């Protein structure tokens, strides 16, 4: 499988700050790639260097094997970019905005209707972009970046301002795009989103890639315990602690919490005691991986 994106030793400095610090990213064609990291980690800067709108101080970027800096018009029709801050032509309606982008990419005007429907802006078709809500702007911006059916799509926090419906709709759209064999690169602060959508995840902090793997491997690699929650009264905490494979058990707020690294025998034992009513199992999530790797303190 060919790699559509390859960066080597990518560096970007702003004065004393090294915003991106020797980043190597390889994205094979058809991958759904997620770039995760705290605020200011360098996600946007990295993406923008790959897209060719920011000049790297060091290192090399290849998109489809081609250089992207300075502006390379050969690769531009093949990529679709939704920037973190959306920007539109002033005083144009949603429809006119998309029409302009359709013409800029020389694609059929049928795409306009398709895109409007795809991001659910049918009712706002004639509305000026200045009068759209934040989430609606975000959706229009995504529509503008997808109008020419690009081979690689870059989305910088596409779901940041979206309501739950729009968020799930966008997931469907992105999955469909990815199913057609096209590559998607996105950044997000929603770990559930990354876990559900991405094939590959890179976690970046202070400009450095900490790890790159599939969400599953990242989570199991953490080796953390499962928590099983049972309603109080079915069995006591001493009884629970005595079950095979249980690490610890404690009672609080009317709920018995059991921690274990081997959930199967514990669940079987609980089933025997008919204690499955209202039972909840929580495993480690991508969020735990993220917090473990990047720490819990605030970032600037």
């Amino acid at each position, binding site marked *: 499988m060919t790699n559509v994106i390859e960066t080597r030793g990518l560096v970007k400095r702003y004065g004393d700050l090294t915003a991106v610090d020797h980043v190597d990213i390889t994205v094979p064609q058809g991958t759904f790639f997620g770039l995760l990291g705290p605020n200011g980690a360098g996600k946007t800067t990295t993406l923008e260097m790959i897209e060719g709108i920011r000049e790297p101080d060091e290192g090399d970027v290849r998109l489809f094997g081609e250089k992207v800096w300075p502006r390379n018009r050969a690769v531009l029709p093949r990529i679709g970019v939704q920037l973190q801050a959306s920007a539109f032509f002033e005083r144009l309606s949603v429809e006119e905005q998309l029409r302009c982008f359709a013409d*800029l990419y020389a694609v059929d005007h049928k795409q306009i209707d398709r895109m409007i429907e795809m991001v659910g802006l049918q009712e706002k078709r004639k509305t000026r972009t200045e009068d759209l809500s934040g989430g609606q702007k975000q959706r229009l911006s995504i529509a503008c970046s997808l109008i020419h059916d690009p081979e690689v799509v870059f989305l910088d926090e596409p779901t940041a301002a979206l309501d739950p419906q729009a968020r799930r709709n966008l997931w469907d759209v992105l999955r469909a795009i990815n199913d057609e064999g096209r590559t998607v690169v996105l950044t997000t602060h929603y770990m559930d989103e990354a876990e559900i959508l991405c094939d590959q995840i890179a976690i970046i902090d202070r400009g450095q890639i900490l790890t790159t793997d599939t969400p599953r491997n990242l989570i199991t690699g953490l080796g953390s315990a499962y928590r099983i929650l049972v309603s109080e009264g079915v069995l006591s905490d001493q009884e629970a602690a005595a079950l095979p494979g249980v690490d610890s058990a404690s009672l609080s707020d009317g709920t018995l919490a059991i921690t274990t690294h081997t959930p199967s025998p514990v669940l079987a034992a609980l089933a025997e005691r008919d204690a499955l009513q209202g039972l909840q199992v929580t495993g480690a999530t991508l969020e735990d991986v993220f917090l473990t790797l990047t720490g819990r303190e605030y970032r600037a």
Partner: protein
Amino acid sequence: MTSFWALTRAQWFGFWRDKQNWFWLLAFPLMFLVLFGFLFRDAGASKSSLTQIGSVAIIDQLPAEAKAQFDNLFEVTKTDDAAAALEEVRKGDVDGAVEQKGNEVILHYSQADQVKAATVRGTLGAFVDGANVAMSGQPPTFTLKAEAAEDDSLKPIQFIAPGLLGWAVAMGATFNAAMPFVTWRTNKLLRRLRLAPMRTESLVSSRLLVSIAVAMIQMGVFLAVGVGLFDLKLTGSWWMAIPLLLCATIAFMAIGLIAGAISKTAEAASGIANVIILPMAFLSGSFIPLDQAPSWLQTIAKFLPLGQLNEGLLDSLVRGEGPGAALMPMVYLLGFAVVFGLIAARLFRWED
């Protein structure tokens, strides 16, 4: 090409739908035209006004040629009300009133305005003398034909309109180039457009087309108001103003692009554009004609693009010059556009 038209379309709507643009680029300069037009409506008119009481044979029976000359010098209104006519003279509403009793032609004039009185007396006297000579049947030995050096076509509106039009177009082209590029840089639209596979030139040329359209509208409205409301008379090859304004739009767009490139905010760009255009408009005779200005000022004006534009506009619109008169200003403006365009291209930035 599709991107060029896409950008032109988008920018045209963006411009058209902003009422402020129309105020500043059309209504505002037009206000000056109307104001100056009314203020100087009668100034410089070379005719004296004369009220004729009853029939005055010497005037009524002038031979055709002399009559035409007379009409060039006097604006005659006829009345039978002698008292009212005298009252008008006294108030200075007319320069004189004339009546004939037998062979005596009586001119009533007011001493309040000595110059006018003398003019009317002298001129009318000449006609009476002429009539006397004619009556004698002898051909006159000497003839004097008095004509004003400027003909009627150099009434104030004739230089007010071209000057203000030049200013309006210069202002329009400069702002139209400066503002959008700063705005698009600050709101990051330029970065987004940079990711679209269009040529950078389409971005600039589409803006230029919008500016040219605006300049043509400005010219159309200015000339329509001038001709319709203030008796502006277009002479000679007035249509040469079209290519002239085209060249001027390119030159001022280059200035605007530079102003936009060196400004961080739209407010700063607008300030810089104003600081360039407003003094230039004064120095180039957009508001006050330079004919009587000191020669050093006229020299400065020759080097200013707006000075060249105004000169070219005056030549083609009102001075009755042939199409060649606009060529030099056009060459100058294009040369200016090339030099400043290159500077603008060097200063161009996609983002701050």
